[in-house]
């Protein structure tokens, strides 16, 4: 009896919610649906990015959780484990997909334009399908056995040490690696979705919407790289303090690759700003100001961290 009442309340709640959504979207469903219909490419890209990042993130979490689970030592088949991981990875995305489709259907019916929803739904479905497949494959491809085997076992694999030579490339790579670890795409995927939707809502074309997404992505990376430069300078200085490394030998390799990335990224952002009908002087100003700030910050971070 109790369960029946709960189910009845849930059904009533869903019906009321659908009705509320229908009434809510009826006023602006025409403009909204036609924007999505026109910008189907943007819908596809946003859905793809969201699916890749969501599924790969869930996949990594599922793998980590499985390795710590009390069931990890149980004699379960590999297929059963994969099915379990698939449920973990796809369940939430599937729910979100169905919800968005439902809202689109309600909007189409409420606005009397049910034919308009076909293209956005197709783009959404294609984005989710491709993105899910890529997201599923990403953690799989990186999954390697990383535990140390017994010292008493026969070693079958060995790294090639013949090419081991003194090089500061690792120091140059460090800030970039830190920036990538700080700014994983899935951490800002909701931001991408919001930026894309706002771009469309404010009347931007699909190309401009994608350009805005690109600028946001690159700008986010450049800010992360700037921040990474500061933290890595301190860590690297601590690590290398017992060595006789000179200031130039420390600061230049540390900043070299980061500066190159900053320069390329800033030029791309400036080009996008210029393409969006801004004056070339304003675009050049962006490059000069940002690169000036970057160089000042890197120089300050290196000089305050280094101590002979």
């Amino acid at each position: 009896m109790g369960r029946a009442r709960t189910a009845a309340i849930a059904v009533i709640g869903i019906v009321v919610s659908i009705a509320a959504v229908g009434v809510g979207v009826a006023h602006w469903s025409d403009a909204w649906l036609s924007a999505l219909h026109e910008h189907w490419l943007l819908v596809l890209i946003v859905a793809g990015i969201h699916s890749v990042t969501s599924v790969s993130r869930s996949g990594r979490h599922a793998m980590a959780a499985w390795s710590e689970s009390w069931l990890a030592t149980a004699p379960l088949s590999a297929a059963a484990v994969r099915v379990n991981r698939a449920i973990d990875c796809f369940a939430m995305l599937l729910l979100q997909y169905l919800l968005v489709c439902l809202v689109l259907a309600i909007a189409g019916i409420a606005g009397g334009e049910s034919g308009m929803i076909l293209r956005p739904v197709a783009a959404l479905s294609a984005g989710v399908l491709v993105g899910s497949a890529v997201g599923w494959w990403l953690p799989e491809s990186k999954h390697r056995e990383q535990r140390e085997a017994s010292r008493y076992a026969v070693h079958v694999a060995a790294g090639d040490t013949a090419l081991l030579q003194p090089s500061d490339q690792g120091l140059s790579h460090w800030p970039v690696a830190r920036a990538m670890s700080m700014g994983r795409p899935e951490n800002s995927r909701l931001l991408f979705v919001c930026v894309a939707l706002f771009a469309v809502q404010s009347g931007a074309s699909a190309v401009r919407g994608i350009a805005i997404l690109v600028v946001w992505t690159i700008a986010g990376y450049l800010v992360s790289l700037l921040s990474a430069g500061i933290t890595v300078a301190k860590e690297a200085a601590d690590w290398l303090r017992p060595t006789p490394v000179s200031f130039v030998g420390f600061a230049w390799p540390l900043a070299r690759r980061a500066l190159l990335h900053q320069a390329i990224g800033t030029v791309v952002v400036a080009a996008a700003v210029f393409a969006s009908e801004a004056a070339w002087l304003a675009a050049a100003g962006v490059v000069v100001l940002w690169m000036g700030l970057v160089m000042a910050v890197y120089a300050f971070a290196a000089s305050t961290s280094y101590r002979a």
Partner: protein
Amino acid sequence: MTERVLEVAGLRAKYGTHEVLQGVELHIARGEWFCLLGPNGVGKSTLLNCVTGRMRIDSGEIRIGSYSMIAQPLEAKRLLGVACAPEQLPGLLTGRQCLEVYAAAKNLRSIDAELLEVAAQLGFTRFIDKCTDTYSLGTRQKLTVLLALIGDPALIVLDEAFNGLDPASAVTLKRLLRERLSQARCGVLLATHSLDIVEHYADTAALMLDGRVARQWTQAEIAELRKAGGEGIEAALAAASLR
């Protein structure tokens, strides 16, 4: 007189207002394995941090070879090989990158074949292209030791470097250090709680208490304690600690 690779005189250092080192005196000769013992928190790691230039000192002198760590730090550091704490390794770099960067920082033209052989003996080679974040404690220790051995340094400083090492790797490393010492290529300063190393490998052992060297044992004294059997070294340490 045997050449001294490390000389510490009247060393004082403090964290804020707390004086951790209160006039430490010690010296290590080329070919000598010097073990630093003592309870937690008496200043062993602080002493090593001062010797390796990680921490500024308040007064006193540290000389590595013929160079002052305070007045000529770069020259002094050219003679130094330090195994940093495993958690200080850059987690985003691979073992290969760590070795290459350290060799470049020491201004070396190449990484000698002997070091690569040691890496192979320690079973480290197959982890060389993985990020240090993925290493076990033992594998990290192996990398820190390899970093310390780069460039054939005159003074090797190790802080609990045998922690987490599997027995085979630990023996390999002890033999390797012993061989280098017998060829008078270096001196070794090791902070440890392992009395087994003191008993079988150390030439000199020192007990630190309250920021200074409270008691020192020569190789002959260590041999005497070893011959006495039973709790020889442990008992001697306990007695010295209670004084």
